């Protein structure tokens, strides 16, 4: 066993050379990958502001995976790209976990096409998107002119979110009318960069993903204006159209859920307060659409007044206005 001392010496030297950090208090966050960029930015700035006295960890388990941990009491805060579901509410109730539901920003699902595509410049109606994406379109709707005769006789190449993502859930709910109901013969990826590249390379492609990925790739992709109902004008996704509620139905609020018991700990309270104060600026920085300023103020009020629970009652909803959402009664 002569090699052992040498091996250990090398290994331990590496470990010992790691700079030392004092022990501090910890805020544990997990959940949706859609909410992650905002939470990460807040966590980064918060730790700087607190001079590393408070430590924050952020994981990505997805909205559902995050709620599983949250309802077992393993995390203090959970990011969610959709409201908490009934089954998750029951799980939390069983473990005696109560929580605050705080919307923190908007994400605008963006329908994108190749820059060479010109026939969609005026926009696409929700009805047309539905005919393109609904399950019965599988294998049947394969050419653009099948949806609108004025569109070219060329194959449609579809790119969309993977079936495990909240983005997929929301898009299908908003467009097809039923969550998770979609045709299966499209290029699906959990990695939005794969979708960006796919649409960028194919003149006949159409795809959807979160606004941040469009914002970072504006030169390579074109966003399609969405026409909510035939006759209405097409609305392109942007900070303004999302904020004034005209970009419908693909704009959605994203949330953080805060464990009420954790909120009694000063470090969690400080973090959530920091989130509500600086969240707007940081969300904008990571290319998300911030809520109107008064929404963050109302969130703080709700925390102060102890307005626990969800305002959705465990059901997914499309096209909720942020004012209505904040005014609703919450329940656990």
């Amino acid at each position, binding site marked *: 066993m*002569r*090699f052992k001392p040498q091996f250990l010496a090398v290994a331990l030297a590496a470990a010992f050379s790691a700079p030392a950090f004092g022990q501090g208090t910890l805020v544990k966050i997990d959940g949706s990958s859609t909410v992650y960029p905002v939470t990460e930015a807040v966590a*980064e700035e918060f730790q700087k502001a607190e001079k*590393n006295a408070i*430590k924050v960890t952020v*994981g990505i388990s997805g909205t559902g995976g995050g709620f599983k941990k949250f309802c077992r009491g393993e995390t203090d805060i959970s990011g969610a790209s959709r409201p908490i579901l009934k089954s998750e509410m029951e799980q939390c109730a069983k473990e005696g976990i109560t929580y605050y539901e705080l919307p923190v920003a908007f994400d605008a699902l963006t329908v994108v096409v190749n820059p060479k595509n010109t026939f969609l410049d005026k926009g696409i109606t929700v009805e047309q998107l539905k005919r393109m994406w609904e399950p019965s379109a599988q294998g049947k709707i394969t050419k653009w002119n099948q949806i609108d005769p004025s569109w070219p006789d060329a194959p449609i190449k579809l790119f969309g979110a993977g079936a495990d993502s909240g983005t997929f859930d929301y898009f299908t709910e908003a467009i097809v009318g039923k969550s998770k109901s979609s045709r299966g013969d499209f290029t699906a990826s959990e990695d939005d960069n794969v979708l960006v590249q796919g649409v960028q390379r194919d003149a006949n492609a159409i795809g959807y993903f979160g606004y941040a990925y469009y914002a970072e790739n504006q030169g390579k992709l074109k966003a399609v204006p969405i026409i909510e109902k035939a006759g209405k004008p097409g609305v392109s996704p942007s900070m303004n159209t999302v904020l004034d509620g005209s970009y419908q139905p693909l704009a959605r609020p994203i949330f953080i859920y805060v464990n009420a018991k954790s909120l009694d700990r000063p470090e969690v309270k400080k973090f959530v307060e920091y989130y509500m104060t600086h969240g707007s600026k940081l969300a904008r920085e990571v290319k998300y659409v911030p809520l109107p300023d008064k929404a963050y103020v109302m969130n703080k009020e709700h925390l102060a007044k102890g307005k626990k629970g969800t305002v959705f009652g465990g059901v997914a909803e499309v096209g909720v206005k942020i004012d209505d959402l904040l005014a609703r009664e919450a329940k656990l």
Partner: protein
Amino acid sequence: MAANAPESTSATAPAVRGTTGDIRRLIARAKRWDVIFIVLGILALGVGFLTFLALFLDMLIDGWERLRPEFFTQFPSRRASQAGILSAWVGTTLVMIVTAVVAVPLGVAAGIYLEEYAPKNWVTDVIEINITNLAGVPSIVYGLLALGLFVYAFGLGQSVQTAGLTLALLILPIVIVSTREAIRAIPAMIREGAYAVGATRWQTVKDHILPYSMPGILTGVIIGLSRAIGETAPIITIGALTFIAFLPPSPVTADFPFLSFEWLRAPFTVMPIQMFNWTSRPDEAFHANAAAAGAILVFMTLTMNGLAIWLRYRLRKNIKW
């Protein structure tokens, strides 16, 4: 027999009969296969080597901008230019230490037992088959096992120690199998010689089997650790974090007893997870970070391999049989 030999040669090879030129041509034709095989061999080698080189160089070129000292001393950040791999490389190093400390003694001991002590019966056979099969189990399965066993049943938490133990389980079969291979390569006369002068089994193992098989065992350990260092699936399953901007507590403290094992319980992230997170970002500047982190991860693996080759060389020098 000797009298028959020339006759049989001439009988089986009538075509050879003739000038020496014919024979030369025959030899040349036979040797052509050598040339063909050498070319094929070099091509086969080239596929592996060039693929590695292309991948490594591509990452190096893409990530070159970011390969600065700060990259190693900065925490993750939402700004690509300020993001670094400090928490990731420290996490990977600590997890690897736990993995090696757990897997090597267990694996080597199990290998020695199976080769030197275990009776040859069906129980041993079943164990052997199981170990070989374990080496082929997908790593995510180990992650699920670890989540149930280490994280929840044993309450070890989503920590460095859990990750280390999980990866140790993952590489255990590799260590066991390579230990056994190394022991089998030792000539039987060594063992017999030791027994002949009255050595016990343990003395034989301690003074002969283990030192002589060490180079082979080491190779297996490094192959195992090289696999473990790049694992993502089981580590994500047990709950490694994506954003973590602090380090585990230092193992050396100012107060008595000067050593602390608090770091075993610390939350962590590892290099492959950090890379994965950066590749899926919308901002392209992060992709350069991912490439740089990838190049460093490859470099870490190469360093481990280099260390193994050097140790093996040193150990082999001392072996005389």
